């Protein structure tokens, strides 16, 4: 012990258990700590509950429809994966849907307008997604502009570019099937496989690589991350580029799902992806949450949509309930954060 100050002498007599933990917790506090360590648990519980409730009401018919739900949520889950990366850095990307549609249009039009082979067009589509993402990332990381404003702008720009370039021409499913079937690679179960593979890959990257840890650290506290040696700007640009590439993948999957290349699709994809992310328990303030939560969030939306439709309620009830879920998810996020105090 160092020579203490005069007034500190009494400390020797005081309770020595400063740094240890208070092990007596109420069940509620224990739940809070569990959820803090397992951010995907809440959406998982909600998902299991909602599947059970709809299953009880609708019977076997509902369970047969589960693969269908997976197909229906695949696009918003893939876009949601891109959104997850961005939101983990405490950003937001409003342009995801626009990037998806523009990439799918590039894949389609490059094949049909310029006669490029399908694999080349698909690569161009991915390039287009990466370029859009790079634009977002450069403006946000290098120019220090707020992500909301930047992507609000690029959303409009990319969407307008999409309509100007495509002249709103739909490429028919049958033409694609005849001339470039590779564009329709993702259909049926391949869509589901693409979604799960992507989410698993990103889960690995986020949790088991240095880059993934850096993404979390940036969202948590960018200044602390910078001082700890994370190259914040570079990682941020990489996050937005990767987000753009994932959106391009979503564009490819979208062609498979719709059969056709339709420049008017995906108008609400940004909102749907943010919804999945938020219901999935990922904090909009960055640095917290699991990508698995996002996929549960997307599935919850899908289960509610199809379940309520099968019961035969007015579709507006779905939106109402999803609104309630969003607010509940954010409230739970705030509560879990208090564990730190």
């Amino acid at each position, binding site marked *: *012990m*160092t*020579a*203490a*100050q005069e007034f*500190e002498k009494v*400390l020797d007599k*005081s309770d020595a258990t*400063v*740094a*240890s*933990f208070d092990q007596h917790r109420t069940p509620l506090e224990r739940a809070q*700590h569990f959820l*803090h*360590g397992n951010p995907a648990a809440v959406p998982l519980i909600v998902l299991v509950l909602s599947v059970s409730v709809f299953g009880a009401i609708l019977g076997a018919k509902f369970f047969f429809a589960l693969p269908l739900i997976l197909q229906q949520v695949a696009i918003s889950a893939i876009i949601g994966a891109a959104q997850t990366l961005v939101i983990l850095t405490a950003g937001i990307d409003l342009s995801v849907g626009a990037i998806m549609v523009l990439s799918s249009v590039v894949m389609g039009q490059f094949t049909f307008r310029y006669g490029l082979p399908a694999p080349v067009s698909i690569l161009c589509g991915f390039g287009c997604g990466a370029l859009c993402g790079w634009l977002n990332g450069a403006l946000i990381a290098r120019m220090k502009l707020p992500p909301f404003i930047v992507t609000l702008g690029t959303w409009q720009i990319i969407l307008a570019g999409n309509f100007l370039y495509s002249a709103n021409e739909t490429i028919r499913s049958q033409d694609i099937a005849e001339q470039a079937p590779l564009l329709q690679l993702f259909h049926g179960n391949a869509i589901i496989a693409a979604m799960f593979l992507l989410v698993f890959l990103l889960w*690995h990257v986020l949790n*088991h*690589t*240095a*880059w993934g*840890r*850096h993404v*979390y*650290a940036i969202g*948590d*506290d960018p*200044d*602390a*991350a*910078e*001082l*700890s*040696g*994370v*190259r914040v700007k570079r990682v941020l640009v990489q996050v937005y580029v990767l987000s753009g590439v994932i959106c391009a993948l979503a564009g490819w999957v979208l062609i498979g799902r719709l059969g056709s290349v339709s420049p008017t699709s995906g108008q609400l994809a940004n909102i749907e992806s943010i919804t999945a992310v938020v219901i999935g328990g990922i904090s909009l303030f960055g*640095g*917290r949450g699991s990508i698995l939560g996002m996929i549960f969030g997307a599935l919850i939306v899908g289960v509610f949509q199809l379940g309520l439709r099968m019961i035969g309620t007015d579709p507006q009830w779905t939106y109402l309930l999803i609104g309630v879920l969003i607010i509940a998810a954010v409230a739970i996020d705030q509560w879990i954060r208090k*564990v*730190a105090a």
Partner: protein
Amino acid sequence: MQPILTARGLVKRYGRVTALDHADFDLYPGEILAVIGDNGAGKSSLIKAICGAITPDEGEITLEGRVLKFRTPMEARIAGIETVYQNLALSPALSITDNMFLGREIRKAGPLGRWLRMLDRPAMAKVARDKLSELGLMTIQNIGQAVETLSGGQRQGVAVARAAAFGSKVVIMDEPTAALGVKESRRVLELILDVKRRGLPIVLISHNMPHVFEVADRVHIHRLGRRLAVIDPKKFSMSDAVAMMTGAMKPPEATAH
């Protein structure tokens, strides 16, 4: 004995304000050097220049006789200067291990590390555990728990352990006790002495005179953007130091170099 870290004639201007006015600085091996000064005296600019957070307009910094120019904190860290920032620079939601290794993670050997770029969690956890134990911080039971679940003193402990684990030449601590209670401050002072015993020189920036006079070997008094004097805390009282710091007393001619 040669100083391990020196600065000569550092100048830093922000517009018309001169934060550093030809400031000098010397740190000797194995010592605890306290840096004190009134608010606005430019002591934080001095420290930022040394740890790479700002680049001085003029002057040079030498580490073990070699002239270095830091453009980022990362470059200073690579050179062996670790800093414990006042805000600690920890990511609250990440675990203790992840925080300690942020920016210098250990990857698994073999294809898992090379191709999947997988982190070697067990190896990192072991190092983290060892470092915390060395500093007597193993009241932290779970190395995987998030930093935000720790108390203020424990967080400080993690930040100090990180600096001590990777700082090969110099550790800088900026106001390590400012946000802590009486008991936690005491533990952190012990930590500082632990680090010193392991042979690392420490630069301690603090407003807390009792703490400074308790642990420092020498006290660097900064005033009006430059070094006013370096005094031996055993020969001067706290009120002398405060008087010099505020300009109420002239510094002694021969300073404790």
